[in-house]
């Protein structure tokens, strides 16, 4: 029986020998690493975190797979947080957070029992938070903020928030959760783990930063509806940039965007006095002292991910040309002059500096 299959096995081996070799790159050196998050193609389970070493400019494409016997990280790598020497990778469609040791990406644990997890933050080595959506795209319901015990890597409690909670912010003993399908920010008290207040902002709050004066800036995308003719999308409400002080959240500075496009991805520079955001296919920079939006873009380019390296102010922009083509990231000097670019996996959407 075995002998009969021998030529077949030989033929198979010959065919298999022709598969292209997977690229191998050396493990990253610590402290000069940039983690590049690639979502991957939905349902293919090929999301990845690439490690870019800025000293040697070397790239490990799939750090999790390389460190863990080619295990797959999962489907739709959404975001990543860092606490000490632990990395928390939020894998949206796989409903989990992979906990890895840094910088080697060896698996420590998997936090399960989550549904549509989006963003992670932590306030200590034992306390973490994850925002989760509920419902489906035609009928989202209020989401939750899950409170995690990072010593056991389990969910300890859940706080109901608004619809589609996004990029949360921990500041001054409070967790601020922007509810992207509503016009509110939910405020959760760290000590009690309960919802203490809800701040009304503009439509579609999705990303937040705190500046050097401890003011909170909330970027609200506004709402859109879709139409049959180009440009296919109309703003039913304009985007806004909202600033408030946590001590008096009702007193707000509101700067409205033109109702031509949705702003997104609010970031803050190393000195916490320059804001960055995307709008209308370009990236803008604005001083926290400004009371009006800048009219000239910082970089005329649309990015699927954007971040500033606090160690040297290098700007990182992710490029996703299509859903089934590898993406890349471009590095820029702090002035906005392009430096170089590197190919990563499909859909680079974020950067973590470690």
């Amino acid at each position: 029986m075995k002998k009969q299959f021998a030529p077949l096995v030989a033929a198979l081996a010959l065919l298999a020998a022709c598969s292209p070799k997977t690229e191998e790159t050396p493990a990253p050196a610590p402290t000069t690493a940039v983690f590049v998050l690639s979502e991957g193609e939905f349902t293919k389970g090929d999301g990845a975190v690439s490690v870019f070493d800025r000293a040697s400019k070397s790239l490990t494409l799939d750090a999790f797979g390389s460190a863990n016997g080619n295990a797959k990280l999962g489907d739709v790598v959404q975001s990543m947080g860092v606490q000490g020497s632990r990395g928390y990778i939020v894998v949206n469609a796989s409903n989990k957070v992979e906990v890895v040791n840094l910088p080697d990406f060896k698996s420590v644990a998997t936090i399960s029992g989550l549904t549509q997890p989006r963003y992670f933050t932590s306030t200590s080595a034992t306390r973490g938070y994850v925002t989760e959506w509920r419902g489906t795209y035609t009928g989202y319901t209020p989401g939750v903020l899950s409170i995690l015990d990072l010593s056991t890597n389990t969910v300890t409690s859940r706080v109901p928030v608004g619809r589609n909670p996004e990029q949360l912010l921990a500041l001054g003993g409070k967790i601020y959760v922007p509810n992207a399908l509503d016009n509110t920010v939910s405020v959760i008290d760290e000590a009690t783990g309960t919802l203490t207040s809800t701040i009304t902002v503009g439509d579609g709050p999705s990303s937040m930063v705190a500046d050097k004066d401890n003011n909170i800036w909330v970027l609200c995308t506004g709402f859109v509806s879709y139409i049959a003719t180009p440009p296919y999308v109309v703003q039913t409400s304009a985007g806004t940039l909202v600033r408030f002080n946590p001590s008096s959240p009702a007193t707000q500075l509101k700067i409205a965007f033109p109702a031509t496009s949705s702003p997104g991805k609010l970031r803050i520079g190393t000195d916490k006095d320059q804001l960055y955001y995307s709008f209308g296919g370009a990236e803008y920079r604005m001083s926290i002292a400004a009371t009006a939006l800048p009219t000239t873009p910082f970089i005329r380019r649309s990015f699927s991910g954007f971040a500033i390296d606090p160690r040297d102010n290098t700007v990182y922009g992710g490029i996703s040309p299509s859903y089934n083509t590898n993406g890349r990231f471009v590095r820029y000097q702090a002035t906005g002059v392009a430096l170089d670019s590197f190919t990563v996996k499909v859909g680079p959407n974020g950067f973590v500096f470690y």
Partner: protein
Amino acid sequence: MRCFLSHWAALLVVLAWAVPNGASAQQRPAVPDSARLSQRRHRLADVRVHAVGPERFAVGSTRLELDSAVLAQYRGGNLADVLQARTPLALKYYGPGQLATIALRGTSAQHTAVLWNGLNIMLPTLGQNDFALLPVGAATSVSIQPGPAAALYGSGAVGGAVLLNTGPNWRPGLRGSLQADAGSFGLAGGSLDARAATAAVAVRVAASYREAQNNYTYLLREARGPVRYTLQNAALRHQWSIGPEVAWRVGLAGEVTAAAWLTDVDREIQSGVNVAGSQARERDQSRRLTLGYRHVAARQQWAVRGAWFEDIINYRDGGTPSNSRVRTTQAQAEHTRALGAHGSLRLGAEAQHFAALVDGYGTTQVAENRAAAFALLRYDPRPTLRLSANLRQAALPAGLAPLTPTLGLEWDLLGNADSLARATSHSLTAKASAARSYRAPTLNERYWVPGGNPDLRPESGLGYEAGLRHRLALSRAAALETELTAYRQDVDDWVQWLPSASNGIWSPRNLRQVRSQGLEISTALGLRQGRYRSSTQLAYHFTDTRKTQGTAADSDPVGVQLAFVPRHQASLSTDQHWRDWLLSSTLALTSFRYTNASGTDFLPGTGLLGATLGRTVRGPAGTSLLVLVQATNLLNLAYESYPGRPAPPRTFSASLRVGWR
């Protein structure tokens, strides 16, 4: 280069393994039907009410036919199953019962027209067919016509066409069979094929049912090591198909035909094993009705036909429905007449009306009309030289489609391809064809909200092929047929959906040129000795398909083999009959396939072995009982049919068929 050689080496190893099957060859030639290369005798109406088919005007092209004996082995399955086991054709396949689309000659799923009794049944919304929704038992013949000559079938026939035909059997009396199937992972099903005929009326009913749990296990490599899971949300809850048809002879030369084909599939949609907790489900229902009349006289024939289709796709995931319903009404008319002693000319026209109520298009119904006129000419200046020249012009809502001419030539260089009866014969035929082809924009491409682009131009193809067909009757007991075809297929204005840089909305645009070129080799050996007969088919396809040029907006790299098109595919099948026994085996070899446009991620090559063992027991009064045991993936290879979709391990099924005549 090393790679290329090793593929040939792989093929040779397989050949060496296969050859001993045909060592003892004597007596009468037995050409396997499934490998029989289309014989083109030029005659109009040689049998009463026997019409000339469109394939008569596709001179110089390859045609791969799956005969009734092969179809009978797979009659409980779907078209994707039989094509994967028996042909070296590329299918993109998401798992058993899940979406399966074809990539003929390296083109996309929208570039293969699927016709049922001459009517295009591609889904107007998606412009493609899910081969998992087409049960094998519904058709009485399945043929694949790759290449440019298929352009005579109209929109979408760029890479080729798949032709599903049904037809009543005019042999008087009642005949039929009833089959029950059961197999691994909750497979259960049954089918009926019943025919009856009198001198004036012939009736056929084909019906089938199938369900499967598909709850097999697979290994997932996790950080803690490999973990075995059971596949979730992958069941085929039910798949019904019923196809009644009737043909009625009217007068000496007329025939009225009426046929219906109703399919209803309820399946869970496997979302990939890395996606947690999906409960996606889809209901696919198609209702196809056709009524036709044809008149066949000695020197001319004409035919008119009307058809009404309704295609429903209702998808839902966790309570979120996405529904779609398209009704297609169409009419065809054609007239064929002999031109002197050596030629025939067909003139015809067709019109289609689509009415679509699709959630993705908004709340209002979208309607669209298309029409086409064609002229098909066949001319055989000598019996050994056959020519065809066709012209087709379609009118689409956005304007005229490209004019699509087709040219074909066949020339018998040696012997006579028609002399099948000769004891020892040796024939060699040269063939060539060239054609333009087109694909009309689909309804989704034109009307989807947001992103639908009503200004989209039809894609246009330009294809050439040339080759040789050789037939050798080694003795009265053995026949060997070999065909070699080289082709090139260019597609221009290839449509791609890309996100807008300013607002991220995905929209289809005419962005690129794609070139596909390749080589197809097939050989079939038929043997017969006493009560033993066998047929063996070996086929190899080399497919090289790449984007050659694109606009600035199209960032996919140029020169990379397109995703999900393996460069090398080979298939080997043998069917051996001895007394009342049947033993079949199939081997399908596929080289690695890229899974993204960058050419970095890939699925490794696979070798899948299948086998069928059958025994027929004759009963009284023309009854018979057939017991079939079938196995797939006999080597128990663990592989993914699509990234994140583990394929089934070794599976078994058993069938019991009661036949009567």
